């Protein structure tokens, strides 16, 4: 390609005005014909948003109504699910689990990621390989041995147990991502700080951590969303209703023979709003962080 680039002016010496013309055409061509973007985009937006809208409509219109644009808005279904079905408790459990997993995954992945990025140690390759291989070990297929372990450790029906298991399954990928982020931070500044008499720990807090903010946001929100959405572990290891998380609670509103659509929709809104908000805020970081080469570790 470079070859043709350098040869072109020799082949066809351009008249004086042509370069600007050419350039303008190239720039105007870049966005493509508007309909090529807008038609598929609008179609895809409809596919994405109609289901969300359907849920909202069912959640805020009174039972028996079939209006597609509900007015006046009624909160009776929210009252039902929050107070009668127990979504207040499920919501609390989900928040505890989401935040617990967020904290532990973030801290442990920074620790491990730093070790991978900044040290050379025996067994490093084996450790990295084990982390990668763990991605092929599905939590869903491990239900049976995990159940036995949970029973043995007395972790059934405990949020702590759920948090620990979820952290174990999320940690490998987060740790690999985090080590990629840390590797992208220049090591010179850190070394300079250490030459100036900082301990490694102080150098880390003064130099590395401030630059790691986008990574912490990305990994932390990944962890929160993953934990918030965890279903099978919660279904299997929490059998008491006061330990249910939102997905488990929601699955029981589905399981009713005659589904109460209003309650299902209101419960769905309760489960959706926190993650969709978190996601809307962090999705920019997500794309930027991944494109920074972090995904290649």
């Amino acid at each position, binding site marked *: 390609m470079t070859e043709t680039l350098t040869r072109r002016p020799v082949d066809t010496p351009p008249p004086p005005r042509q370069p600007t013309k050419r350039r303008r055409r190239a720039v105007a061509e870049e966005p493509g014909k508007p309909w090529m973007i807008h038609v598929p985009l609008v179609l895809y937006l409809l596919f994405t948003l109609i289901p969300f809208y359907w849920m909202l409509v069912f959640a805020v219109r009174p039972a028996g109504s079939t209006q597609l644009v509900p007015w006046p808005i009624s909160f009776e279904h929210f009252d039902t699910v929050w107070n009668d079905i127990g979504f207040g408790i499920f919501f609390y459990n989900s928040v505890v689990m989401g935040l617990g997993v967020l904290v532990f995954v973030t801290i442990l992945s920074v620790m491990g990621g730093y070790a991978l990025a900044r040290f050379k140690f025996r067994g490093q390759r084996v450790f990295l390989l084990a982390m990668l291989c763990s991605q092929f070990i599905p939590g*869903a297929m491990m239900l049976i041995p995990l159940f036995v372990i949970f029973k043995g450790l007395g972790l059934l029906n405990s949020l702590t147990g759920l948090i620990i298991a979820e952290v174990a399954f999320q940690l490998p990928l987060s740790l690999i991502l985090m080590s990629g982020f840390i590797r992208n931070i220049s090591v010179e500044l850190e070394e300079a700080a250490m030459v100036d008499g900082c301990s490694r720990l102080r150098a880390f807090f003064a130099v590395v951590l401030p630059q790691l903010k986008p990574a912490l946001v990305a990994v932390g929100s990944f962890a929160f969303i993953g934990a918030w959405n965890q279903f099978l572990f919660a279904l299997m290891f929490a059998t008491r209703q006061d330990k249910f998380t939102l997905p488990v609670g929601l699955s029981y509103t589905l399981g009713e023979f005659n589904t109460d659509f209003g309650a299902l929709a209101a419960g769905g809104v309760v489960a959706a709003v926190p993650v969709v908000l978190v996601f809307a805020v962090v999705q920019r970081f997500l794309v930027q962080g991944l494109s920074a080469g972090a995904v290649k570790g």
Partner: protein
Amino acid sequence: MRTRTWAPYALIAPTLVLMAIFLVYPIGSVVYYSLQRYNVTQPWKNGFAGLDNFKQMLFDDPLFWQSLAFSAKWVFVEVGLQLLLGLVLALIVNETFIGRGMARALVFSPWAVSGVLTTGIWILLLNPSTGIFQELSELGIGSPGTSVLGNPDTVFDALVVTELWRGVPFFAILLLADLQSIPKDLYEAASVDGASRWRRFTSVTLPHLKDAIILSTLLRAVWEFNNVDLIYTLTGGGPANQTTTLPLYVARQAVDSHNFGYGSALTVAGLLILLFFSIAYLRVSKFGSRA
């Protein structure tokens, strides 16, 4: 930077402990259980079974083969369609237009939604009495009372579309991230050379995306193979086990029948199949070598 060699080990120690308890030990025990008769509801029969579980699975259990075949079909269709639509979506939201940030946030948002919630949302949308087909039939499109989830002819399509809703953003996000790392001057050089849009896509964009595509399809294939949440809650594997995947079959052995020995044998088979196909896929696709 080798000053204190114990430091890295101290840093990875908690991770190692967690992995040992929740990943390594379970794999060991699942292999062990697979050679046992181990049923929580019939403890008096428990004991060493040799390869009986595997014999039963291979020669005496049509549901094993049926669920395996459905798993293969499910993974192939889902990953293929998600990749295709995700790539198109990534290319669209990579263009410059007004409201792009908003459009990205909206089309990516189903990624954050759990399988159970996806089921809830689509049951509201697809149910025959108050769903979208009812509304459409009132407008004169289609027939009232269409139950796509209860009908054996349409249940697969309904399941596929539902999972696409949640799955396409994954590919779109990963591929968009990789699209943005393509140096702009490559496109400018190609434009100056007179390459058409399509030509620039096939000779600049696709080769650059190759590794991201291989890795994301592999991760997604493993993930879709193991995707239990959505199918478990949307169809429960039915009607008549028609949509039962292998992991769903395992989960039902564990949750419903408490037949841990046989369920473990199914798990071992699933793990071996995943391992084999992952290695084969990376070999055949020549991951890491630039085209």
